[in-house]
């Protein structure tokens, strides 16, 4: 179970995993968000594992986070049309995904 008081960049997040109360701190970047999502998945009880739908949403969320980071600086690159230059972190995130 995980509690999120306010799901924003400055939110303080507390998680409860295996009875241990964790204070993740401020959600300031993709690393912290990835940690939050990892903790929010129940991997101990087979009956409550993430569904395929939830995993799909998780993949999209992770890529969206990377895209948001890139889009913060994209305004300085108005003449650029190469996606690898416009969205480097997003492209790296896609590359890291395993091919099926």
């Amino acid at each position, binding site marked *: 179970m995980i509690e999120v008081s306010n799901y924003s960049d400055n939110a303080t997040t507390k998680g409860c995993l295996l009875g241990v109360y964790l204070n993740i701190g401020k959600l300031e970047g993709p690393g912290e968000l990835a940690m939050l999502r990892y903790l929010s998945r129940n991997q101990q009880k087979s009956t409550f594992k993430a569904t395929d739908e939830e995993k799909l949403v998780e993949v999209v969320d992770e890529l969206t986070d990377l*895209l948001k980071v890139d889009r913060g600086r994209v305004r300085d690159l108005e003449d650029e049309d190469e*996606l*690898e230059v416009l969205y480097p972190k997003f492209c790296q995130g896609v590359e890291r995904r395993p091919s099926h």
Partner: protein
Amino acid sequence: MPLFILGLAMVGQLGRHYKHCPWFTVGRLGGMLGEYGGVSDRQYGKMGCDANERAMKFLGDFMTESVEVLEKLANQQEPPVRRRELEKIRDAFEDPKSDKEALRGQLAGMVTAFEGRGDVGEWDLEILDRIDQCFEEHFTSEGTAESWVFMPDDDRNLGRYAKYCGEVDRILLTYSDAVPKYARDYFAFYSIWEVQGYAFPMPLGTSKVVSVLAQLLERYQPGVIEVSCLLMKLM
């Protein structure tokens, strides 16, 4: 570059509005994500690409563009032409006898202003849902797109689009405290589809519009192949 993945990540910024869409399921997207998520050496648009790849590229482009339009509607800069004037110009565009070039000239400042963008996060998801319902009411029947959706020069399409624009404007007025400051003005400009480079009226790319496009791409996939290959030969 997997443009479809980019489109998904773009709409991901608007959370549940798109993720609760009927097409946002593992059945439809899981395979695509699995295949395209790690692919970097296959390129869209090459001869020999299968229909599904082309459809996904098209859908991805549309999703990206849809979110970009919402960003433009959230622009915080005051537009040089305001809503009432824009609506008059929109009505004038429908008059076959009107001087289209003169009308475009009146919109030159708006074309520049519409390049600016705001924060897509300013959109209240419930308001996007309401706008989406407008599309559903006017352009679909029992969950399926009307045959004339996205058709150029179709009176039914033009008539419904006019009603849709009126409804969207009413929503933006009703919830004016919860929408970007100049959303009504920029929407009035966006709704002049002739100026946006479209060949037919184009509703805002909310979730059911993406669903309808996905349905149509599935239904007419062979058509997408033939047209795309022909175009690629010409290029």
